[in-house]
Each structure stands twice: as C-alpha cells, then as structure tokens.
C-alpha cells in the first residue's frame, strides 16, 4: 500500500518540463539535477514534494525525448507512483524499468493536495480526501515482472535474459 499527497498537473507534460535540455550538463550529477525536477511545469514542486507523494497528471504524461533522467529524478525525490490518464510510450517503459509504477486511471476525480492510498495489487486508488475510489488498468505481464523485480537491471541480473 502506497500513501501520500497528490501533486496535480495538466495534459502533455513533456520530458522537457521534467528535466529541461538546458540542464543536460547535470545529467551526470543526478542529485543536482533532481533539485530541478518538474521545473518547467511547476518551479515549486521540487521544494514541496516529500517521500511517498504522487504525481497526478492528465493525458500523455512524459511525451517527448527518451531521456530516462526524467523518471529517474522523479523516483529520486521520493515520488511513489505516477497516476495519469495516459502516458507516452518511452516514458512508460523507462519508469517501469526504474521500478517506478505508472498507473492509468481517470485522474479528473483527484484534486491537487488530496491524500491518496494506492493498492498496487488490488489495482485501486483510494482518495481519502474526497472519498472517491478509482481502479487503474493492468499493465502487460512482462512489465509487471520487471516492476516486481524493482526494475529492468535487477530483473536481468536475476534472470540473465528476458523471460516471456
């Protein structure tokens, strides 16, 4: 069970909003890069987010570049899962590869600042603040296995290959 506060964002939050290209020189200095997480979407996010919180977004979250640094710094600042109406393909794969759950559900029913409880096994989001209960769609089996091992690197270290 994951619990935390919702940080609400709109549609089409790109990897440029999360980790702008102008900060590419910090990509080998991740703690420094993490201080700028989501900077071009909400400059106050990095100073407000705490361990366990959720990013709750609209449609097409994470579109744009393939930079894995985007989910990586989101993970580093303690976000426990991303909830969105839909998510861009490469970002989805990258987040799962890092062990960061991405849950597709109707995020219109969640407000900024709401307290949430997410049950990854039951597939439910409980909005404690407004009493709404949402379900999220299941992700492909292979991604579930990768997520279950904590990400792609631990998965490959354990099995040595892809197991379908």
């Amino acid at each position, binding site marked *: 069970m994951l619990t935390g506060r919702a940080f609400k964002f709109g549609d089409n939050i790109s990897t*440029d909003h999360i980790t*702008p290209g102008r900060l*590419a020189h910090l990509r080998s200095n991740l703690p420094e890069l993490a201080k700028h997480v989501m900077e071009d979407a909400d400059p106050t996010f990095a100073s407000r987010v705490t361990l366990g919180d959720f990013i709750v977004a609209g449609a*097409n979250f994470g579109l744009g570049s*393939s930079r894995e640094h985007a989910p990586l710094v989101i993970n580093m600042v303690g976000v426990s899962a991303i909830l969105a109406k839909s998510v861009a393909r490469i970002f989805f*794969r*990258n987040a799962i*590869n890092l062990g960061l759950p991405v849950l597709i559900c109707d995020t219109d029913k969640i407000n900024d600042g709401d307290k949430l409880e997410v049950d990854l096994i039951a597939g439910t989001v409980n909005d404690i603040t407004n009493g709404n209960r949402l379900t999220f769609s299941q992700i492909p089996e292979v991604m579930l296995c990768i997520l279950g091992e904590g990400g792609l690197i631990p998965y490959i270290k354990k099995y040595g290959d892809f197991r379908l």
Partner: protein
Amino acid sequence: MGKTLAEKILSQKSGSDALAESIVVAEVDLVFAQDTTGPLTIRQFQTSGFEHLANPNKTALFLDHAAPSPNYGLSSDHILLRRFAQQTSCLIFDVGDGICHQLVAESLAKPGDIIIGADSHTVTAGGLGAFATGMGSSDIAIAFGLGKTWFRVPESIKVVVTGNFPGGVYAKDLILHLIGNIGANGATYKALEFSGDTVDSMAMSQRFTIANMAVEAGAKAGLFAADNITKDYLISQGRGNHYQSVFPDADATYEQTINIDVAELEPTISKPHTVDNIVLARELKGTEIQQVFLGTCTNGRLEDLAIAANILKGKKCHPETRLIVAPASRQVLLAAIKAGYIQKLIKAGAVILPPGCGACLGLHQGVLGDGESCLSTANRNFRGRMGNPRAFIYLGSPATAAATAITGKITDPREVV
C-alpha cells in the same frame, strides 16, 4: 494472414508470428546512444554487470547533442563515451560528424532492420524501411549487453497519401497537418505506415522528415516500404548491397486508415507549446520572429538547405531576425558547400553551425532570450525546449523558415517566391 510492415519485420527478426499486440523478443541490428543519454546508458550497462558488448559492430555512440561541448560537465561525458568506445570497440561518431539519426540513415540502417536508440527520434530510419524506435538508457544498456530486447508488436495506422504537393508545400507541412489532426497522443503505442501515390514517388529526404516526426503523434515507429527510391538512395551512399525490398502484405490488417490529399494542404505551422497545435502559416501573418533555426534531424538535410538557399539567394535576412543553420551531417555540409548553398545562406546573413543538433534542445548555439520567438524547422516546440521557458517556438518547413527570415515575421513562403 497478411502482415503490416511492423508485423513483417518483427516476425522475421523474432522468428515468430508477430501479430499486433503480441510481445516478442528480437535481436537488434543496431543499438545506439548519444551524448546526453549515453553516459547513463554506460552506467546502467556497468551496473548490470556486463563486461562486453553483444555486438560491438552493431553498437554505436554519437557525440552530436553538445558538439562541440559548451561546458566541462558535458565534456566529461564526452570523455566517458570515447573511453567506452575504446574499451569495447563499438562504433563512435565524434563531434562534427553530425546528428545520430542522419548518420544512421546515411551509413548504418538497412531495410528490414530492427534499430533501437536512446533517442526518441530513432524513428527516422523508418524512412528506409527499418523498424526503428527510441528507448531509454536502461533498455539500451541491456541491448548493448544482450543484443536484443522485447517489443510489444504495435497496431498500425495506414496513412494513404495522394496528390501532388502545391508549390511551397512540403513533407513537413504534411506531417504537421497529420499530427494536428490526430493529436500528440493520436498514435501512442502504434506504428504509422505511409503509402499511396505521393509516397511512392517521394524523395528519401522527405520520407525521413515524416518518419522523424511520427513520435510527435506518440507513435512507436513511422514506416515506409523499401522500394526503388530507397535502393537508389543506398546506392548513392555506396551501400547498394544493403538493399532488400520490404513491403507490407496487400491483405494486412490496419487499425484504421487515414487518407490525405496533399493538393489540399497549405504551408503549416505548429504554435507554442505543443506540436499538435497547428495553424496555417498565413493565419499567423505578422507574428514577429527574432530567430530562425534551419537544421535538425527533421529538416537539416541537403534538400532542405537547397530550398532555403534558393529562397534566400540574393536577399538579406530581416535586420531584427537572425538565421542559424545547422547541417545535419558532415556529408550534408560538404555537399551544401559544393552546391553553393552555404555561400548563399551566409551572404543572406546566416550563421552556420557545425553539423549536429545545434540550437534544437536548448543547450547552446542559439538559446532564446526572454519573450523571444523562434521559427524552427525542428520537431518539438515544448516550453523550454530551446533553453528558455519564457520563449516561444513555432515549427515549420525550410521554405517557411527562409521566407520568415527575410520578412522578420511568420510568412507563407508562397508570398516571397
């Protein structure tokens, strides 16, 4: 049962019947990373415990995004990449060689290949009939080590393009129009497969422009059949032996079909801050532009520079508008010098950058100031993309870029030629 291009290539390479929605593991013919994704890829490769590449001659690194490097942080990343190449004997393309996707097209990609790269515009190689897609550093690191990866076989959307392009209208306008219509989310997890009379006679440079931007509609791949035009292109690159014809089956199943008659198109622009925010160039008439950027993996090829040079020939850029040009590769730059395009552009007032990504991603070489607007031939106009979240990016064709450089305001190219 008939197969789409995506299903055909993935079936052949995975040795299974790869129909849409199935999950397959396939060997990759090329796996690569560039200088802003490569360092993390190398660290993930090492963390995974790999010591050797599965296939050094099918693994490549490109120093193109920050080339030459603007600061010591990125210079150190370049050193890391060069050392890794030395240790593992993988291919490396250094500062000044050009943009990864252009170099892949020129010298590495083959029809029927599976190509994965740690860069979202890896889809560009779909222009010559390769199943090419972008992934993140972890996936690429594992493919460095294992020589393969897993794929969910995408459903395909068939885009049938017919008619003749009117003067001043190009492949860039077509792909902006398509993305505007289906939305930045319109092809997520799917492949866009292009066909029709117009595509059958379309030059490779235009196919690359279209394939390149497939990802801006969320697509996993943007695919073209490999035909005689592909063959001639490979021959011109000294790689005629890399050709094989690749076509979809006539009875393949598509998720949907979209028909576009290019005769009805006009010069098109995508407005800040999303690529699907399209309007016609003439509807933005009068919008002042401080910087025009001609280049990138979308429109930095010889044919693109030719279009702009011919419009700018004997003319001058507007005094309040700077024109920045970045050829996509060394080969493009040399050919553009030989053809006289570079001289024409410089005389019109252009600054020529070294081959590479240049101003595209906001690192250097053309960062926008507060409140400034740029007309760019690139593929993305997200807030902050060109280094400043308080600036505005409009996307258009090389012809629209050249016309805009002359007037200093967004201009339909049909007005100046």
